[in-house]
């Protein structure tokens, strides 16, 4: 093929114009139209599914949070989320990246199992996998129904509620697999804790 500079220059000029026109279509008009439709039809979701309590925003339904006391330790009054690589900072999503047999990960998991078991007063073999592993996003808003279940006694005690009441609350907040067969069963921690707060305040 010919590498004559004039032959090469012509497509370059066309290419630049093509890029600019297609940028206008796919990089300006397209996101603008989608944003317009999204804001008009689904503004709550398009803006992050924010959750309000006491008349102010307290987070997003889709973004997990820490539930620690003033010292930064897990607060027994709240349901606790999964471990997070970034401490639930949405500015640093991602996971710890350790392999399934990595010796450091083995230690981390072992330590987490001890901590979760002691904290909730259950046996180590009752601790489910999601309670001792970091999520992919580091802001996973959900825990498994099993992890919620082993926390009920501790949460009930710390809030002066009956274990049955709290267990009922968990039961109400279990979301099944989507459409019955997609993904996993789960419990939204923020939604559960908000309901718990209402119950505790009577």
């Amino acid at each position, binding site marked *: 093929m010919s590498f004559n500079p004039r032959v*090469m220059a012509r497509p370059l*000029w*066309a*290419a630049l114009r*093509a*890029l600019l*026109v*297609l940028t206008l*279509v*796919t990089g*300006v008009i*397209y*996101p603008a139209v989608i*944003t317009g439709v*999204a804001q008009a039809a*689904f503004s709550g*979701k*398009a*803006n*992050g599914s*924010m959750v309000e309590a006491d008349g102010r*925003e307290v*987070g*997003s339904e*889709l*973004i997990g*949070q*820490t*539930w620690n006391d*003033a010292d930064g330790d897990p607060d027994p009054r709240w349901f606790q989320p999964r471990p997070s690589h970034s401490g*639930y900072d*949405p*500015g*640093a999503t*991602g*996971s710890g*990246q*350790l*392999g399934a*047999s990595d010796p450091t*990960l*083995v230690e981390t998991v072992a330590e987490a199992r001890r901590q979760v078991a002691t904290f909730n007063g259950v046996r180590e073999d009752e*601790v489910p*996998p*999601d309670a*001792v592993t*970091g*999520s*992919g*996003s580091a802001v*996973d*808003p*959900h825990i498994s129904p099993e992890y919620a279940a082993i926390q009920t006694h501790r949460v009930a005690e710390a809030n002066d509620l009956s274990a049955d009441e709290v267990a009922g609350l968990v039961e109400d907040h279990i979301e099944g697999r*989507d459409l*019955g*067969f*997609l993904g*996993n069963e*789960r419990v939204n921690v923020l939604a559960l*804790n908000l309901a718990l707060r209402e119950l505790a305040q009577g």
Partner: protein
Amino acid sequence: MNESLADILAVSALIVALVLVHRPLGDYMAAVYSSTRHLRVERWIYRSIGADPDAEMRWTAYLRGVLAFSFVGVLFLYLLQRVQNHLPWSLGFDPITPDQAFNTAVSFVANTNWQSYSGEAAMGHLVQAGGLAVQNFVSAAVGMAVAVALVRGFARFRTGELGNFWADLVRGTIRVLLPISVLFAIVLVALGTIQNFSDIQQVQTLTGTDQSVTGGPVASQEAIKHLGTNGGGFYNANSAHPFSSPDAISNMLLIFLILVIPFSMPRTFGRMVGNVKQGWTIVAAMGVIWLAGVIAVTVVEHQAPGTASQLAGGSMEGKEQRFGEGASSLFAVSTTMTSTGAINSFHDSFQGLSGGVLIFGMVLGEVAPGGVGSGLYGMLMLAVIAVFISGLMVGRTPEYLGKKLGAREIKLAALYILVTPALVLGGTAYAMANGDGEEAMTNVGAHGFSEVLYAYASASNNNGSAFAGLGANTEFFNTTLGLCMLLGRFLPMVFVLALAGSLAEQRRVPVTAGTLRTHQPLFAGMLVASTVVVAGLTFFPALSLGPLAEGLAT
């Protein structure tokens, strides 16, 4: 419902949806690329470009168009990142460093979308929507254009003409990618994916801590990122992020988007060469390999033999609770066997053997079903090899679709097959030998080596996913992986278009009793075998040092 049943239902539902859609979509794409009419908006675009959409191009002119458009794309995207602090919606982020900007520009133009950067902490909304997402559209359209040019090479006789690159580029974007993206972007927002141009929002949680919630035009980018098998995400966590994929339905839609064009293109091919059965063998070969991968990874992830996973009671490290092991496995295989590279869970923390399957999926050459366009032309190159091998077995001159496969054709196919192994193995060896590989590893032992191997496999095959423990934002990796992406994308395209040109010039070889029946199941089997054996023999030693060693040790 128990876990295995849910997994089987999910995979079955996905397959049914793809089977239902591939025919109308494949036929539609064949009509789009064969049409002699232009939409009004397309006429306007052609006028702005200054191109005559009806002018036929020989392979050299077509290639010049591809290279010129891609070169300008790299330059534009590089500059956009370098000056982002002066642009609106920059969120206060600094300009990207030269080596990272080079890497990212090449990455998006080459349809790879390797993320050396961390989206939420580096890229403003304007660079995301006006730069990265634009390449998500057009790099995919370029891939489809090259595939269509190769198909025309098979379909046409005694001409050197392969169509018009500008017309193919614009039609792919306007008539195929854009409408589907609009539809799915809106569906994603309805499910909870965000779509705004907000700044970072500070909220105070119930416990009194502050949290910074990020915004952005995410849904519009998610849709094309998967449909165009691009994969570069808004976030470091990619589609594991709940703002990208809020539930298991959106997760399934994203997997569907990843697979729908690659699995429909063989139908387009069949239509355009005038025999849809020829497309069946291609799609069957793709489907068999993909399904085998899905089954293998799903089973291994559920068994979770890794030491840490055994202790934890499951393979949930790096995975989201709403997806779990099944939906994460399905996504992982679909993203690595296409050239997508988006993730909904971190592959680095998958079981050793699963990681091996994911790497194997990439080094097959991204053909099962592969990227939009690149999957089809990759599989057709392997079909040429398979026909050649079959021809050797029975001692006849190989013919495919009425074309003789002579020395020139086989040489071009062989060169095509050699490019990515040379880049993957050469790159990995170089990184390991000079110490940069070891320095960047997060993991130890065999898994650490897998991180480096994965990086070069991903870049050279234009996948873009990673064993993300590798600290790849260094000058060394930004440069070498950038070169791998560039060469891994455009060198093969040269060979594909050269082959298309030489095929189109041939006269039709009459079908005889001795002609290999390439539309029958036997040939699909031959194609699967050639694909697996070619990649298997090339990569077995490297795989045994990494994922196989790790997997067999547990």
